[in-house]
């Protein structure tokens, strides 16, 4: 089973960007052999998905293939009519999308959707498809493989859906599967399980794969060969182990280094407790159980407390309680020694001013119809009563602080990149001269290198302004980079809390260990190793700690 299966040559793809056709994939070439897994890595805008999808002869709406060739098993896909391409898609080449939750049709059961490809392509009868479905579900470790196919997508968890989608891709025994960031939307512990299942299945079926991801560590676990892409160009290509151990290009090195820890000296200073959360329990209206249970946290002036946990751990709810959006059932919040009232409406303006918030999605955190100077200037007017002139001067000052040029003050959010948006949000928070900034997953929507920049900026600002951060994140790497103290949350409770060194060195609490062990590492074989250790019971699994 050797020989070139897919041969892409000089592929040029253009996209319609505000009415103009601009190239987004610059004459890229790729070959893929049978049974081989190639990893496409790059940040957003690298063209990796567009390039990967071309293996199906498909371009997203608004894109077009201009020139080049895509040979699949000796068949040219460029210029082939739709009807011809349809017999390849889902048949010879299958696709696994980033968000299985969105890519499964909510109106049909998993089985119906599984059977669609093989039956419509005339490979199997419905009965055969059902048998094959059960078998594949079993291989991918889905619970109750005979029955789960009768469920609708919303009745199945995200990790299970992603596995079901992989099964669906394997269903018609394709030659190639294109995986488009299949685990990006998942929690870190789930991601490992899905990755393990996918890898196993792909190996077992001897299928070739194109694995697209922004996370080098994930690709390192999956791919035989890696292509690093940036802005539609190939930066570097090589065997996975070679590329990781000996990167040739500066850009690849940067990507490899993003997880380096920042040396932080612990300033010795008196314990000036700024925020004191005592015995907080909270629930959403109409819910029967508490989302937060008996939380106690202290934040010291000028320091960073990281709250880490997976989705559903209650970490964002905690932010809502602190800001007064969700009054707690029990417990109190003291700020600078004063008791904060539970309701936002009853809080005095200076209390609002001294706690600011930065959001995960900078896109929706800024009014798209306001200019940057209005966004940053509003707190200045509102809290400090600045007149337009003074306001503008201060806006320029803040823009300098967040390392953006002054002329950005006239722009609308849509005219900024993701990192720039998040910087403007930081400036908006700073404009109020706050004592505490709550950062809710501020880097998780950003590309790694950009996220690094934001983290550096936050640290610098803390040094200069002596502001405290309450840093909410799911990403242990971020925690390592920025925190002084760590609070680990799981299912609404604090599992472990303390200084960074104490938490991140053994002995671990079981959940903390699960989290830490689930963060993919760069060396190839790490995943296989982890999976086998987990099977032997040497490493904790989600089941073993009762997630």
């Amino acid at each position: 089973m050797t020989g070139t299966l897919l041969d892409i040559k000089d592929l040029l793809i253009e996209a319609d960007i505000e009415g103009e056709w601009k190239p987004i994939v610059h004459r890229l070439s790729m070959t893929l052999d049978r049974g081989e897994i190639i990893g496409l890595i790059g940040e957003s805008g690298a063209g990796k998905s567009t390039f990967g999808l071309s293996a199906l002869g498909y371009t997203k709406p608004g894109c077009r293939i201009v020139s080049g060739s895509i040979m699949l098993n000796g068949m040219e896909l460029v210029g082939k009519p739709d009807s011809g391409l349809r017999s390849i898609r889902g048949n010879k080449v299958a696709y696994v999308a980033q968000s299985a939750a969105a890519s499964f049709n909510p109106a049909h059961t998993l089985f119906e959707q599984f059977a669609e490809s093989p039956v419509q392509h005339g490979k199997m009868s419905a009965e055969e498809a059902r048998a094959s479905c059960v078998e594949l579900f079993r291989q991918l470790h889905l619970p109750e493989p005979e029955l789960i196919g009768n469920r609708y997508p919303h009745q199945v968890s995200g990790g299970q859906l992603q596995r079901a989608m992989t099964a669906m891709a394997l269903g018609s025994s394709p030659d190639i599967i294109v995986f488009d960031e299949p685990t990006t939307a998942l929690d870190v512990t789930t991601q490992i399980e899905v990755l393990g299942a996918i890898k196993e299945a792909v190996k077992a079926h001897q299928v070739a794969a194109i694995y697209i991801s922004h996370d080098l560590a994930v690709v390192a676990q999956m791919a035989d060969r890696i292509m690093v892409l940036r802005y539609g160009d190939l930066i570097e290509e090589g065997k996975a182990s070679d590329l990781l151990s000996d990167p040739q290009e500066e850009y690849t090195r940067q990507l490899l280094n993003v997880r380096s820890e920042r040396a932080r000296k612990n300033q010795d200073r008196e314990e000036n407790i700024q925020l004191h959360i005592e015995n907080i329990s909270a629930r959403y209206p109409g819910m029967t159980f508490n989302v937060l249970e008996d939380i106690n946290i202290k934040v010291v002036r000028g320091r960073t407390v990281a709250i880490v946990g997976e989705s559903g751990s209650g970490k964002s709810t905690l932010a809502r309680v602190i800001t007064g959006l969700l009054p707690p059932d029990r417990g109190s919040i003291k700020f600078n020694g004063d008791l904060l009232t539970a309701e936002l409406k009853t809080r005095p303006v200076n209390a609002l001013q001294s706690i600011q918030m930065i959001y995960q999605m900078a896109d929706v955190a800024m009014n798209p119809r306001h200019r940057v100077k209005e966004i940053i200037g509003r707190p200045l007017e509102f809290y400090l009563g600045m007149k337009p002139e003074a306001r503008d001067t201060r806006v320029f000052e803040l823009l300098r602080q967040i390392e953006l040029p002054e002329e950005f003050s006239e722009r609308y959010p849509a005219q900024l990149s993701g990192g720039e948006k998040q910087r403007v949000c930081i400036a908006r928070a700073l404009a109020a001269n706050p004592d505490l900034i709550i950062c809710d997953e501020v880097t998780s929507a950003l590309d790694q290198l950009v996220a690094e920049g934001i983290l550096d900026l936050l640290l610098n600002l803390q040094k200069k302004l002596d502001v405290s951060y309450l840093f909410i994140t799911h990403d242990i790497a971020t925690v390592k980079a920025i925190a002084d103290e760590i609070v680990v949350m799981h299912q609404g409770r604090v599992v472990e809390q303390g200084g960074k060194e104490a938490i991140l060195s053994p002995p671990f609490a079981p959940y903390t260990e699960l989290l830490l062990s689930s963060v993919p590492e760069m060396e190839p074989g790490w995943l296989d190793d982890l999976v086998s250790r987990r099977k032997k019971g040497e490493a904790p699994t989600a089941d073993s700690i009762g997630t």
Partner: protein
Amino acid sequence: MMGPVTFLKELNFSARIGLFIVCCMAFCGIFAPWLAPYSESQIVGDVWEPIGGKFIFGTDQIGRDILTRLIFGARNTIALALLSTTVAFLAGALLGFIAATMGGVTDQVLCRLVDVCISIPTLIASLIFLSALGTAVTTLVLVIGIIYTMPVFRIARAVAMDIEVMDYIEAARLRGENLWWVMHKEILPNALTPLAAEFGLRFCFVFLLISSLSFLGLGLQPPLADWGAMVRGNADGIAWGFLHSLLPAACIAILTIGINLLIDRWVHKASGLRDDQ
């Protein structure tokens, strides 16, 4: 943000046709007295003189020049529909935003009130109101405006609810902004596009309602020409081969199509939706 030239470039072919239609009609409306060959109420010939004869579009059911009445009709119909729709949108959007931002009891009360009002058929509600208050132009505008406030309220509320959940609204609330700021600085600018799209559709519905009211004898006062009433006045002739009522009906249809072509493009762009191929 955008010059007129870029604006035109943004439009595709069908949207340009729409723009052309709307501009022509607006031009006719604004300059009616100078464009029209006769005066609005002047009787110039026999009843239903043929189309294409001495009078290019013929004469109407009492012998007035149809071309003249169409031109004046553009002015009256469009102005009336525009005013009523504006009233509906001002009131509906304000109440809808209030309901969405304040929530709770205010929202409940407003919603239930609108539920009640909306379950009285439009034509019958306008009939009762107009019979009670008379059919002066201002009453007509207000009554139609108020009746269409109800559906607009629902749309505005739904749109505002969608915006409500955005983080920037939460950010404004955390900042301590008051209701008015949230409504007119944070929600309104973002609600404008969907509301404007709706405005165009409602605008068309309004002159259909006006023509239905004319049919029941409650429309614009004569001799003011409006297209709906012109269709009504000349409709008797259809069965006898006098096709004069097709002309004002065509005007209504053309304007509706024009507005919809424009709006379709706008909604299309605003939603960021890309139809494939």
